[in-house]
């Protein structure tokens, strides 16, 4: 008998003799985890992950060295095994030092793979960068212009010089793809046959429509205004988001195949009930927070007193408004800053923002406040409006009475609220006043039908949507964006809508919703103070690229865009400033995967806090990061050339290496097998700088295009870009082996020098032409030569690098269309 029969996890398994339990399990599709296993080369410092219980044995057995025997009863899953793995993993985690995800990724409300798209920019892969952004954010043009940039506040580059200008890079890739007329080819799932109505065509509504459509649902947007865009169109004016850019962005989303109904007022032209009657499977309310909180002081009802959103909307619609020469803006939020800047552009000579607290207390982002200030907006701080009256016989139309404020006594929590200073009123002479005191989803309650009226609202008049399900109190009706969250940034509306789509999809399809990204994360330090400056020893100071900007004294005169965007060179330089904090082995890391599978809490076990070794860039193709090494030694044993050594001066009390060395020997052929076998991010390919974080990867098996060995390899494709090349162990003819060219030599595929269009020689120069002209001209010339000199006056060279099919067709073409045997290739060259 050459087989043995054993029992694994209650199932009978027949296996070849003399195989280890690990190998038998692999062949029977039972996963036994391991960190250190290399087939046929057992480790001398075993990771002990692969332990199993064998009936009749008290101790846990390492499946990688225990042979499967007749009648054995093996158990691979038990609390005892998990506890053992947890202990082992905890020990490794204690000294593993690095970031799984970069702080920018973690800080972005949209959880966008920021490091990934920056890396794409650095590699000149702008289209892929944009596609990566659009995995999670369909509005890169707008967000790239108005985002508060949470990510940049956490950029570790701050500890060296200045943060990376992340948002400008996002805008750059979006704009680049627009100018180069790139068709992004966003993939869509198969149609589900389900229909969803989206109320509101602002950022949240458009985002929801985009993600719902990508999931195969049929979406209709109902928009009250005559154009889509919502707050992007009516809250930000041209100088922030040019209309042609906005239209392009919206059209790119609509091209996925989304129906739109414009000038449809909710409660007037349709109701929730009428939508339900039309058979929509779900309804998403994204009507925004467009209702201004009214100004409530004496004299506030006046034709020269406007409310914020209302005012901006009128300007956006092109209405002529007479705002006079001096204006006051009441309020300190972002909208107030937009209003102030818009007033200046309308010809108002003096704009004053009135706010009852200090500048730092203003809810607007400081960058917005700064920019308004640069253009000439003045600030009257620690002042609160009291009364408005018409001015008589004065150069201005209105008198605004304000009272000065001071900070009161601390309350229980130590917070000092402003209070009026008695008798400190002053008069501000203005021609018009615009108030921006915040926005609501609806002033009292929604109208139009019973369902509308029954929508539960929060005390601040926002729609109450369950944070876990995004559902309102009405079954099948969901809400998101500002209508549910109150006025927030565009990216936050995007995130809110994207989450709602996950929930809606689960609801419509009757499935469990996909789990959110696991929060397991090694970090070099959560706050800046926790990060060792030793991390940056080798980083040279390079200041960030300055965004080309029109001077404020000029740009306040018109509505043209203020910021002009990075050039390609600036974008690449800026992208190259990225410190690549996040691990480029994110997707393949076994330590992370096993820690998650075995529920290891690294916040409890602890993790490395400071780099002991630093990164080693001395190999021409690979980067060694010993601080991430768990001493599994797979690299050494996976090397077919015996060209790598991994050593330790000694081991600590828990068996971890001290004085760790990973060295390439002189006979290293740079084939990269060590990197592909690394169980963490300790070994990396220099060219593979894009962390893959849950994005879809297509593994395409193909044949190497270099020498005659015909090695089989896997092209790992994200979107339309080859991220890296790896191989499969069990396939002829190479059984996983690749050479340096096979694993690394594929940057040419998407190189900028590739020929993209047919060329024709005109006036001695090669110039671009159409396929039709090129082929037409070629055919004509071949005909002429044939007619004049006979078919044997034409010769063809075929290509030993091209496919069989193509070589067959080339010789067929020469023998049939031309009519000659003058066909050959470089077999003899």
């Amino acid at each position, binding site marked *: 008998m050459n087989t043995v029969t054993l029992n694994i996890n209650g199932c009978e398994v027949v296996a070849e003799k003399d195989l280890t339990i690990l190998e038998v399990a692999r062949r029977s599709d039972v996963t036994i985890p391991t960190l250190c296993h290399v087939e046929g080369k057992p480790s001398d410092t075993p990771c002990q992950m692969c332990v199993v219980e064998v009936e009749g044995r008290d101790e846990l057995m390492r499946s990688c060295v225990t042979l499967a025997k007749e009648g054995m009863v093996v158990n691979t899953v038990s609390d005892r095994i998990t506890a053992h793995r947890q202990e082992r993993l905890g020990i490794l985690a204690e000294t593993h030092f690095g970031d799984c995800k970069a702080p920018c990724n973690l800080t972005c409300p949209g959880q966008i793979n920021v490091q990934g798209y920056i890396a794409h920019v650095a590699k000149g892969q702008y289209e892929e960068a944009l596609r990566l952004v659009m995995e999670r954010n369909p509005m890169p043009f707008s967000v790239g212009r108005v985002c508060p940039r949470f990510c940049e506040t956490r950029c570790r580059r701050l500890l060296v010089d200045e943060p990376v200008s992340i948002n400008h890079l996002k805008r750059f890739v979006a704009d680049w793809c627009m100018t180069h007329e790139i068709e992004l080819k966003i993939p869509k799932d198969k149609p589900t046959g389900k229909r969803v109505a989206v109320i509101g065509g602002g950022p949240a509504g458009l985002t929801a429509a985009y993600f719902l459509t990508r999931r195969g649902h049929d979406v209709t947007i109902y928009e009250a205004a005559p154009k889509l865009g919502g707050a992007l169109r009516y809250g930000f004016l041209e100088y922030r988001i040019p209309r042609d850019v906005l239209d392009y962005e919206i059209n790119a989303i609509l091209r996925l195949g989304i129906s739109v109904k414009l000038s449809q007022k909710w409660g007037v032209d349709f109701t929730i009930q009428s939508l339900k009657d039309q058979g929509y499977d779900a309804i998403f309310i994204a009507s925004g927070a467009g209702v201004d909180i009214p100004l409530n002081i004496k004299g506030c009802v006046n034709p020269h007193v406007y409310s914020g959103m209302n005012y901006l909307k009128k300007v956006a619609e092109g209405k002529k408004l007479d705002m006079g020469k001096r204006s006051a803006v009441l309020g300190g939020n972002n909208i107030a800053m937009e209003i102030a800047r818009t007033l200046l552009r309308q010809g108002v000579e003096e704009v004053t923002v009135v706010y009852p607290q200090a500048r730092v207390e203003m809810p607007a982002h400081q960058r917005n406040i700064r920019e308004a200030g640069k253009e000439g907006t003045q600030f009257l701080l620690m002042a609160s409006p009291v009364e408005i009256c018409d001015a008589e016989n004065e150069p201005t139309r209105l008198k605004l009475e304000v009272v000065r404020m001071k900070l009161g006594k601390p309350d229980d929590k130590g917070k000092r609220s402003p209070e009026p200073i008695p008798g400190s009123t002053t008069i501000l002479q203005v021609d018009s006043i615009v108030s921006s005191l915040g926005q609501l989803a609806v002033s009292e309650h929604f109208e139009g039908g019973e369902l509308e009226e029954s929508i539960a609202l929060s005390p601040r008049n926002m729609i109450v949507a369950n944070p876990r399900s995004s559902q309102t109190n009405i079954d099948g009706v969901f809400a998101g964006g500002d209508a549910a969250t109150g006025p927030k940034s565009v990216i936050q509306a995007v995130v809110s809508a994207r989450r709602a789509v996950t929930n809606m999809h689960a609801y419509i399809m009757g499935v469990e919703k996909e789990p959110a990204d696991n929060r397991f994360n090694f970090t070099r330090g959560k706050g800046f103070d926790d990060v060792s400056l030793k991390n940056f020893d080798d980083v040279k100071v390079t200041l960030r690229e300055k965004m080309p900007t029109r001077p404020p004294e000029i740009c306040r005169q018109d509505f043209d865009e203020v910021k002009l965007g990075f050039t390609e060179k600036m974008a690449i330089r800026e992208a190259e400033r990225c410190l690549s904090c996040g691990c480029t082995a994110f997707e393949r890391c076994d330590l992370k995967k096993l820690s998650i599978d075995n529920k290891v809490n690294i916040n409890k076990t602890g993790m490395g806090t400071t780099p002991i070794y630093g990164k080693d860039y001395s190999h021409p*193709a690979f980067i060694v990061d010993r601080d991430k090494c768990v001493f599994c030694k797979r690299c050494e044993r996976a090397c077919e050339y015996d060209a790598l050594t991994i050593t330790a001066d000694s081991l600590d009390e828990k068996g971890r290496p001290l004085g760790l060395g990973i060295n390439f020997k002189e006979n290293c*052929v740079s*084939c990269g097998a060590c990197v592909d076998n690394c169980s963490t991010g300790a070994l990396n390919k*220099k*060219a593979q700088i894009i962390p893959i974080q849950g994005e879809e990867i297509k593994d*395409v*098996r193909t*044949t190497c*295009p*270099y*020498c*005659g*060995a*015909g090695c089989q390899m896997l092209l790992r494709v994200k979107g339309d870009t*080859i991220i890296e090349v790896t191989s499969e162990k069990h396939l*002829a*003819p190479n059984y996983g*082996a690749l050479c*340096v*060219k096979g694993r*690394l*030599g594929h940057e*040419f*595929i*998407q190189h900028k020098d*590739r020929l993209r269009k*047919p*060329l024709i020689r005109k006036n001695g120069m090669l110039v671009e032409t159409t396929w039709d002209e090129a*082929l037409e001209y*070629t055919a004509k*010339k*071949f005909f002429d*030569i044939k007619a004049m000199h006979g078919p044997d*006056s*034409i*010769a*063809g*060279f*075929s290509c*030993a*690098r091209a*496919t*069989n099919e193509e*070589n*067959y*067709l*080339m010789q*067929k*073409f*020469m023998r*049939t*269309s031309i009519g000659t*045997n*003058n066909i*050959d*290739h*470089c*077999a*003899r*060259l």
Partner: protein
Amino acid sequence: MTNSIMDSRNTDLFLMIGSNPDTGHPTIGMRIHQAVKRGAKLIVVDPRKTRLAENADHWLRIIPGTDVAFLNGLMHIILEEDLWDKKFVEERTEDFDELVQVMKKYTPDYVSEITGLSTEQLFTVARMYAAQGRHAIYHGMGITHYVTGTDRVKSIANLAMLCGKVGVEGGGCNPLRGQNNVQGACDMGALFNNLPGYTALDNVDLFDRYEEVWQVKLPRTPGKPATEVWDNVLTGDIRGLYIFGEDPAVADPNIAHVQKALEKVDFLVVQDIFLTDTAKAADIVLPAACFAEKDGTFTNTERRVQRVRKAVNPPGQARPDWQIFCDLSHKMGYNMGYKSAEDVFEEIRSLLPQYKGIRYERLEEVGLQWPVPDEDHPGTPVLHTESFTRGKGLFIPEDYIPPVEQIDEEYPMYFTTGRDLARYNFSSMTGKTAELNAISPEAKAQINPADAERMHIYEGDWIRMTSRRGSVEMVATITDRSQEGTIFTTYNHIEALVNFLTLDALDRLSRTPEYKLCTIKVEKV
């Protein structure tokens, strides 16, 4: 290859001649190193001290270009000492007597004088190879890139048949083919003297069949080989050129001659993925998809037909080559009408007996080695196990002919080239990966220390090498990897185009040029 790459696991002895798979075919080189580690014997015949030479049981540092004499010398000893495989020769071969006749004069002393090897080396190697066991010969371009290339290949076959080492696992004659699909390009009949499937142009029956399938009258006179095209352009016999995926402006021997012809030709169409030097001379350039952007098959050196699969879209308006041929053919009034690469393959397998049993479906997991005569056939890992393609194996003994250029006073050094591990051809593809450039930043002229001392050349000196056809400047490096009297360099650097030096004399049968050897003079710059 008569055998398979992984067959190296079964080999007891490797005779490597004119091949350095460590750089030319790295994953195959690795298998040989592993076999040696496990205990297989290794004999390396190479003027250069390669890594395999260093690991060999016997390294024979032969004078370049003398391989036929060497092989004949081995056969002389094997015949003389009666070590040959009588059963195999009797049952499987013909013209043995002729072999005996020609081998007579290749005595150890005579061969030793020609090859620079000692008679002991010849005796040892002859006895080792002829002994019992699974013995494989591997060879590469160091055998074929000579005007006597076919003589060498035949001599290798003679030796293997004489000792009965063909048709067995672990043995065989194993040419390592240079390009990924050079095997396939030959199989597909991209040859001036063969229709697909190696059908000679005098095979009238098959011609009829092709004319029936292709619905056209076919030309039956042989065409011109690629290497003769340039002369024909310069004489005005060839007026139009259609170059698909090759860059002869840098890759052919004696490129000054090629470049002259490219300037002269009336109409030049180039179909490629980059604007190569050849494309720059074209009247029309057609942008093609690369291997990762299209479907199809390659056939590797062990005759394994394997899938190529589309992973990404081609850039801009570039199209897969098969589609370009269909489009152009249509314009020429001949409708090919294929809708996919698989369509084309179906036609191929209907015409080529070797490919008959192969379908795309069967290639999903792993490729098949031709011949695959029917759809249930598992492929053929070892050729000639029962009989040879022509029936009996024919001994064709050849006499030794010296290389075309011999050193003389004016050109006192030999010059030879090989492939760099981290580069491929002229780097139009590999040169786009920064890491590969970092691994192999430049080509260096490798000079033996004795020569260097004689010529007062030091490490890092710039030298000019000049042949009868042109000259090239390069940095010198002093190493005993090069044989005394011979300068070696890699040919993959576009900055140092060695093909200004190389020789375009052609083999009388295959029309292969004598790339591997020419004579040069050397001066310091």
